[in-house]
């Protein structure tokens, strides 16, 4: 036999040996015909129910083994850690089921609390952002407003705001025990019940609301309200009397915010536009582009209009003048802290990580990141193209605009939708800042009206366009079966529900904010004196300079 023939035989031998192995690992081919043979496969036996007796012999590490320590973690956490209801019976199926249920709620509690703490941290971001954009002579005053709103707002919200917002929401399944929040005041309009405000939960003691689930819900909702309450301080910075700020913040936390939040999140009439009027899944606002940001932004507009512009902001012909920020480092640091906190804001709005559909937290977080990136990029490119420099403060505003806009749709859109929403928001905020300043001639030193008001409204509308119908939070939303689906994916009625929400924001929330601001102006006076303003509000309003060792230019 020739050598070449031998080699050929060896190759063929190897191929025949290896081929079956390779085929065995290859994915099964799709059958060309219906798999008739499957009928012949014997059905697997029905699963045998687990009985209490089966648990009797569950192996548990001995006390001696534990005494030696557990460096690799294999002994810690076992059947002996399950609470047993009756020691005589030992571990039962009922004990196991109770433990599983409590574990689920515990996971949700921890998730909601920690994301709530992240949202609270955003207060620092707002404080740094607004103070950096103000002049140094107002730094103490601006920081104090941002801290003051936390305490004042929380107190008002505890007194009455939470009850108005959530007093009729019913049991929040993810948090297990909010059943005491069961009384919603309703009026019948067009033959349908319109939820207007909640009635349980005053002081967190009223009608059984001293309850662990209610406490978790209060903490999370409180920090959201506080985010909204701090938005007007940015638009009113450098000229707002501290006393007027304090009264306004109280009213915002007690009434303005909770009313709209009830209508959207507390079982109110906007949430029920789907069940009552067949409009999509009702008004949807996953984490608050409308409830938090647009409410805050529109209140900021009402206050800024009544306050009027800072001295020197407009020339006698009405042309806007540049008033420089005193510390861009603070501004950008504030923006980045806010972006970090937003990972609590949006993913945390599931109110849990262990329930049907809650694993969407991954896509919610990614949507949040993507929209912030594209918002920043489009604002930066817009400023670079229009004004030849990538302006830092407007790039920061674009960053936040993307985040504000994705807040409502974050739970319902795909990554491509998030990218588009952020891109639009970045340009929109630049156009809106110019419009507010040049056309409306309203002085908004930090761009709060545009970032939170304009882009908040864009976020609400974008949900009605881009919701892709793929999310599933327990099979329904706002009591309507199915997934939230926007116009581009086939449901035009969802867009109408969103626009009714926008009309409520612009027509009702703005009006209520304006009336409150008008009354405060009459009773307390909104604006600091011209002398105080020129001197800087730190000494006249707060009694101390933020930077006493600096030489300040007036």
């Amino acid at each position, binding site marked *: 036999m020739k050598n070449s023939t031998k080699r050929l035989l060896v190759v063929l031998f190897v191929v025949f040996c290896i081929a079956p192995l390779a085929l065995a690992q290859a994915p099964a081919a799709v059958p060309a015909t219906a798999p008739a043979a499957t009928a012949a496969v014997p059905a697997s036996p029905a699963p045998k129910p687990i009985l209490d007796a089966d648990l009797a012999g569950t192996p548990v590490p001995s006390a001696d083994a534990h005494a030696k320590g557990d460096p690799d973690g294999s002994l810690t956490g076992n059947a002996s850690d399950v609470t047993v209801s009756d020691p005589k019976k030992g571990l039962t199926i009922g004990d196991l089921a109770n433990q599983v249920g409590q574990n689920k709620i515990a996971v949700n509690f921890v998730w909601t609390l920690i994301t709530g703490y992240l949202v609270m941290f955003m207060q620092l971001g707002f404080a740094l952002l607004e103070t950096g954009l103000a002049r140094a002579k107002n730094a103490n005053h601006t920081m104090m407003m941002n801290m003051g709103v936390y305490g004042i707002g929380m107190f008002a919200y505890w007194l009455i705001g939470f009850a108005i917002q959530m007093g009729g929401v019913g049991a929040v399944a993810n948090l297990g025990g909010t059943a005491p929040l069961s009384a919603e005041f309703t009026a019948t309009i067009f033959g349908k019940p319109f939820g207007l405000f909640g009635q349980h939960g005053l002081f967190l003691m009223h009608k059984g609301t001293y309850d662990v689930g209610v406490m978790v819900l209060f903490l999370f909702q409180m920090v959201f309200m506080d985010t909204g309450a701090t938005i007007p301080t940015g638009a009113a910075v450098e000229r707002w009397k501290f006393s007027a700020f304090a009264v306004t913040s109280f009213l915002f936390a007690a009434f303005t915010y909770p009313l709209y939040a009830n209508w959207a999140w507390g079982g109110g009439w906007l949430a029920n536009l789907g069940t009552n009027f067949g409009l999509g899944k009702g008004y949807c606002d996953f984490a608050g582009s409308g409830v938090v940001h647009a409410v805050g932004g529109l209140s900021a507009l009402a206050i800024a209009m009544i306050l*009027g512009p800072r001295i020197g902001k*407009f020339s006698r012909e009405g042309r806007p003048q540049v008033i420089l920020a005193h510390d861009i480092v603070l501004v950008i640091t504030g923006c980045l802290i806010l972006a970090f906190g937003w990972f609590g804001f949006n993913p945390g709005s599931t109110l849990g990580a262990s329930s049907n559909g809650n694993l969407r937290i991954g896509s919610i977080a990614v949507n949040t990141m993507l929209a912030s990136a594209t918002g920043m990029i489009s604002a930066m490119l817009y400023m670079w193209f229009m004004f030849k420099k990538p302006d830092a403060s407007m790039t920061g505003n674009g960053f936040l605009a993307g985040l504000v806009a994705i807040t409502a749709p974050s739970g319902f859109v795909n990554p491509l939708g998030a990218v588009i929403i952020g891109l639009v928001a970045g340009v929109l905020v630049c156009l809106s800042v110019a419009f507010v300043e040049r056309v409306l001639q309203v002085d908004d030193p930090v761009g709060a009206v545009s970032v939170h008001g304009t882009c908040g409204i864009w976020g609400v509308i974008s949900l009605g366009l881009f919701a892709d119908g793929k999310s599933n939070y327990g099979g329904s939303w706002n009591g309507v079966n199915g997934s939230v689906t926007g116009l581009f994916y086939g449901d035009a009625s969802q867009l109408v529900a969103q626009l009714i929400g926008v*009309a409520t924001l612009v*027509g009702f929330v703005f009006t209520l904010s*304006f009336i409150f601001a008008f009354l405060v102006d009459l009773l307390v006076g909104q604006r600091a004196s011209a002398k105080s303003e020129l001197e800087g509000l730190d000494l006249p309003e707060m009694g101390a300079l933020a930077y006493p060792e600096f030489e300040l230019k007036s």
Partner: protein
Amino acid sequence: MILVGILLTLLGFVISLISLGVTSSVGGRLAIVLIGLALSLFGIMGVLNKAYLKNAIWKKG
């Protein structure tokens, strides 16, 4: 003018709300809501803000 501005803004909201009762068609509701929204925006920007701009601080010498 401030009162007129506020009333127009609120009227826009009421018109949007009425869309729920007067028709059940999506297109009809959309049109009515947009009219209401436009009226509210006019109330804020075209009436209320202009009333405040009349006495704007930079016009006072």
